[in-house]
């Protein structure tokens, strides 16, 4: 009897252990007759400007690979939550089949060194690698391998409402920060909030402004300086002043709210990427979009930066999960190739203004290119130099500390000295 019970227990435990050990590999080893399902993590869903075109690209891929592979969009509308999901997926071993992440050197090394991503190096030889610039590809390099390809670039202008500017008696976009604050005073006198920004979520636009300010003080290579350098301190003083010209509820204000200030013409300026252009048309209509101009970095009196420099470069890199089933991995790579195809990059640019990192597409005169997008492109071509913004240049720890630190600065809870010290303390 005792032996029977022990044998029964052993069998029960064996069943549990077997059930628990059925990991994702069981799912990936689909037979050839089955259709492979690939998940694509993205925030390009819902009302997002790129969502419609991305869905069309996915549908076309699925149609072409019907019965063999199917890409399923796993959408997370909030970008910050998407980034968090991707980071935790590394630790929980639930890396999506295809995904992109916001590139910064510290996070990139964690992703690439995790041994959980596809080595894309052999797949680049068939011409795919030629779609990207050498500099762009460097973002995916880890040791002697390419673990990710550049996916989406950006050029971040300071959008401004030309009509509100004209009504306040401002003829052109400010060329210096002194002009910027002078213009801001005029706008305030007209009852207009000069700059729409906030410290909610990842304080997106505020960190862009801070990057612009510090670059105008210290020049192109300012990210090589320590975060408590005099340039960052001076930048913090300017940023503190900037909050006098921001919405009164800027502290804790999320992106959607301060973006509304601009689109609803309560605010005259906002700093953001080209993906916002579709929002101008969808929410404000053609009439509003016609009023939007794109400015670039003002110069700082006595600073090393040059007027017209822009925040630009690779923002997202595209990669995917390493599979034990080579066929599934092939399909994942096939989708990445299709997604980054120059024709699709061009479609995304024309449809939404997004600058996809495929170097080899050209805009022709008969293309229905939007005026603001073309302005941005021309600024990019004329820019004396480009630089990254804080989230792309520094570690996640710094990026996550920034909203709290800048809120304290805006509320007068900390001095600019304490603000830079707070960021420097978490900088790796």
């Amino acid at each position: 009897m005792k032996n029977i019970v022990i044998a029964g227990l052993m069998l029960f435990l064996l069943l549990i252990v077997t059930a628990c050990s059925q990991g994702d590999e069981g799912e990936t080893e689909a037979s050839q007759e089955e259709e492979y399902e690939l998940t694509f993590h993205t925030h390009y869903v819902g009302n997002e400007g790129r969502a419609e075109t991305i869905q069309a690209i996915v549908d076309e891929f699925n149609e072409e690979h019907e019965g063999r592979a199917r890409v399923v969009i796993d959408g997370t509308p909030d970008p910050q939550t998407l980034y968090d999901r991707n980071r935790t997926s590394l630790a929980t071993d639930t890396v999506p089949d295809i995904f992109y992440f916001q590139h910064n050197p510290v996070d990139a090394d964690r992703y690439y060194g995790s041994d959980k991503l596809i080595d894309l190096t052999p797949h680049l030889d068939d011409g795919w690698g030629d779609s990207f610039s050498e500099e762009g590809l460097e973002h995916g390099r880890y040791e002697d391998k390419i673990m990710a390809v550049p996916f989406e670039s950006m050029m971040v202008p300071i959008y401004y409402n030309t009509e509100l500017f004209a009504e306040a008696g401002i003829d052109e976009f400010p060329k210096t920060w002194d002009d910027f604050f002078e213009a801001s005073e005029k706008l305030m006198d007209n009852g207009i909030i000069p700059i729409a920004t906030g410290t909610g979520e990842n304080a997106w636009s505020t960190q862009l402004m801070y990057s612009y300010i510090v670059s105008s003080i210290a020049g192109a290579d300012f990210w090589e300086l320590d975060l408590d350098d005099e340039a960052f301190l001076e930048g913090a003083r300017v940023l503190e002043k900037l909050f006098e010209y921001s919405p009164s509820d800027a502290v804790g204000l999320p992106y959607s709210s301060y973006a509304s200030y601009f689109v609803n013409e309560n605010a005259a300026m906002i700093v953001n990427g080209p993906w916002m252009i579709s929002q101008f048309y969808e929410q404000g209509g053609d009439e509003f979009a016609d009023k939007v101009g794109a400015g670039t970095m003002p110069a700082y009196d006595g600073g090393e930066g040059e007027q017209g420099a822009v925040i630009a470069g690779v923002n997202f890199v595209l990669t995917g999960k390493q599979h034990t089933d080579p066929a599934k991995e092939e399909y994942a790579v096939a989708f990445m190739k299709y997604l980054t195809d120059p024709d699709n990059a061009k479609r995304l640019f024309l449809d939404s203004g997004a600058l996809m990192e495929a170097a080899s597409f050209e805009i022709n005169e008969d293309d229905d290119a939007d005026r603001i997008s073309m302005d941005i492109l021309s600024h990019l071509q004329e820019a004396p130099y480009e630089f990254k913004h804080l989230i792309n240049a520094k570690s996640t720890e710094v990026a996550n500390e920034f909203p709290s630190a800048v809120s304290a600065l805006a509320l007068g809870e900390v001095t600019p000295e304490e603000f830079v010290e707070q960021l420097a303390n978490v900088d790796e």
Partner: protein
Amino acid sequence: MKNKKKLGVFLFILPAVIVFFIYFVYPIGFLLYTSFMAWDGVGSMSFTGLSNYERLIDDHVFHKSLMNTLIWGAAAVFIHIPLALLLAIILSYKVPGWKFFRTVFFFPNLISTLALSMMWLFIYNGQFGLLNAALELIGLEGLQRNWLGEISTAFPALIAHWLFYVGIFMVIFMAFIATIDKSIYEAAEIDGANIFQRELFITLPLLKPGIAAGVLLAITNTLKNFEAPFVMTNGGPVNETMVMALHIYRQMVNFNYGYANTLAIMLILAGGMMILVVQLVFREKNA
């Protein structure tokens, strides 16, 4: 025969014990183990002794989040539960429209915390929020402010949005009250006890086990609070609304899994202590 019965009992509880070990004991053990490690969640772990625990001493965000979690727990005990109790007692008198009010008070419990948080985010909005509009309507413009953006109001506003959703505890207490023998009230009434005396000396003492359960449930709920702070303030401004669960999450997405797990251990300890205090308080009064 006796041994056979014991064996049967053992076999019956075995699956539950195994599940308990897999889903509770093992994760707690893992948390404890990794709390002594430097681990980014991706690479290998390295033993760092008590350094994660030493870090707690200087981590002012941890201090703030722990304090906020405790304050939220206290608000649950001293405001949330008494409010639920008061409503349960009133509605148990089956006042006109009591079924309607019971449904109204319970309804928010059917809505996800996320949706409620989004709604309150708009109510508290500094520029276009309903709260500021209401204050303007009644001539109290001076009280208008950015409720979730100012240090002095952010945390009270965050707690307040949740404080009045007492439906679930109200229903629990009503169920307890319904089990109290009506003849006790009748006897007290004959003896000249007024309505307040009857509630104070009959309902409350007999409801004590229910109140204890409610308090325990409310405290454990507050310890797990995440969605509302995440959606409404993300811990800001200046970590003023940071709670333990959100601080753990922040550390986790910063690839500080070792330290995040240390914080999780502290949360478990804080929860254990709060529950112990509640049990002691109720046991003492029962004696």
